[in-house]
């Protein structure tokens, strides 16, 4: 499958990424390689095999509804490029 300029622009909007022309070109190439790899997988004959989303037949893994301490706020926000009043600070987003 060919990744077109329109596709790259659209994905850029969805992912909120601003790519310049050279970045777009390399993203196009890489994405095409990924998509084409799916073609390889598609060559495998899967008739009669049920689609699955997990590799192991595990089900019903639950956690009981018991509160445990959260992580210290200093630690949680440690990697934030910007913070203010205990919050992560990000560029203005539209409501």
């Amino acid at each position, binding site marked *: 499958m060919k990744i077109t300029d329109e596709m790259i622009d*659209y994905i850029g*909007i*969805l*992912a*909120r990424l601003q790519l310049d022309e050279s970045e777009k070109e390399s993203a196009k190439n890489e994405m095409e390689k990924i998509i084409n790899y799916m073609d390889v997988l598609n060559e495998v004959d899967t008739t009669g095999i049920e689609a699955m*989303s*997990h590799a192991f037949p*595990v*089900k*019903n*893994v*639950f*956690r*009981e*509804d*018991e*509160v*445990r301490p*959260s*992580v210290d*706020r200093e630690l*949680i*926000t440690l990697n934030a490029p*910007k913070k*203010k*009043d*205990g*919050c*992560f*600070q*990000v*560029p*203005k*987003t*539209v*409501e």
Partner: protein
Amino acid sequence: MDYITTMGLEVHTELSTKTKIFCNCSTEFGGEPNTHVCEVCSGMPGTLPVLNRQVVEYAIRVGIATNCEITQYNKFDRKNYFYPDLPKAYQVSQLYLPICRNGHIDIEVNGKKKAIRIHEIHMEEDAGKLIHDPWDDCTLVDYNRCGVPLLEIVSEPDFETGEEVIAYLTKLKAILQYTGVSDCKMEQGSLRADVNLSVRPVTTDELGTRTEMKNINSFKAIARAIEGERKRQIEVIEEGGRVVQETRRWDDNKGASFAMRSKENAQDYRYFPEPDLVPIEISDEWIARVKSEMPELPDAKKARYLADYGLPEYDVDIITGSKYLVEIFEQALAACNEPKEVSNWIMGEVLRLATETSTDVEDISFDFANLGKLILLVKKNVVNRPTAKEVFEKMFRENVEPEQYIKENGLEMVQDDNLVREVVVKVLADNPKSIAEWKEGNEKVTRFLMGQCMKQLKGKADPGTVNAVIAEELAKL
């Protein structure tokens, strides 16, 4: 031209579990920003979510209470979108195999019964809160709410009027409260509704193009939003235009809706199965147990109150419409076995004082059994009604115990008929002018005399007795 409005509702309700859906952080409302956050709910790389069993339990409960089929083989899916309220850049939700399907809720509007079909109910996680910071013109992000469990309850487009929508929401809210799965505090965002709305001329069966209004958070605002959007769409059509399918934001202060810019609004969520969570299999036994533990639901309670207590339907609708009023009713009833009296007190004084003190019904906190005790004290003529109302106000505001409070403040009714007669005789003697007027046929003066007697008796006599004694003494003149 007349138009038919068609609406569907998506209701999000925050579940009242102690912890979030995929981690052990507290769901408590109102904490300092980012203090209920861990590696999992802040979306740190390398962490894995583990499902809270209680979320599934609650979802099954709501499904049964809304007559749904329970999906016994469940999976989660990822809904991808990039927005800072979602640190993982996807929301874990259910697209392909939602936990409940094909249910219905029965409503009644102006005596007309109608079943609103429920398309599906699915489990998902809430997003964080964005706060606009005007000082730095930026956005601050608080992830305390991120990962709080939600149920999204999606109706079929079965609504034609705003009244039907409000009736459905009222019933749904009562069901969610009765089953204990949510406190439904709209002002805290634990119940939010999105309305899909389209209009079409009566001459056609083909549905018009719909718009969606998101996150409207009070019943009144929903009613206004529906009316506003209906009018707007009709205007567009009558001016020869076309309604555009879009998401609109209802601004309740301005009384108008505004289109959200389409670029931010690109609805392409590229769902795919969530690989970090294993499937859930709900056994027949699990469903049977939840069914057997189901509390009495609003419709059944209403029917029982009407049949057993003979209360007016309007009063029963109000009381059974709120789990909290039901609690007051049932606890007070247990203490006095006087259903009509309890209902009258709730419809009168309880709701009056709640309004007067701006108290939400869920925050009314006096000892409800004391209302039953007070009703018995009135019945036994220990206090008269006006005094009982004063006592109740003290109970409502300060949670006093009525019997003790009446004793301590000497509010018992005067039971001594001789004392009453003494006072009446004295009042008649002191008011010769009124007696003269009465003799001329002015019946109104008896009311004045009554007031004077009650004043002397400090309001603590039985008005009926006082009235009777006045009549007797006047007859003697």
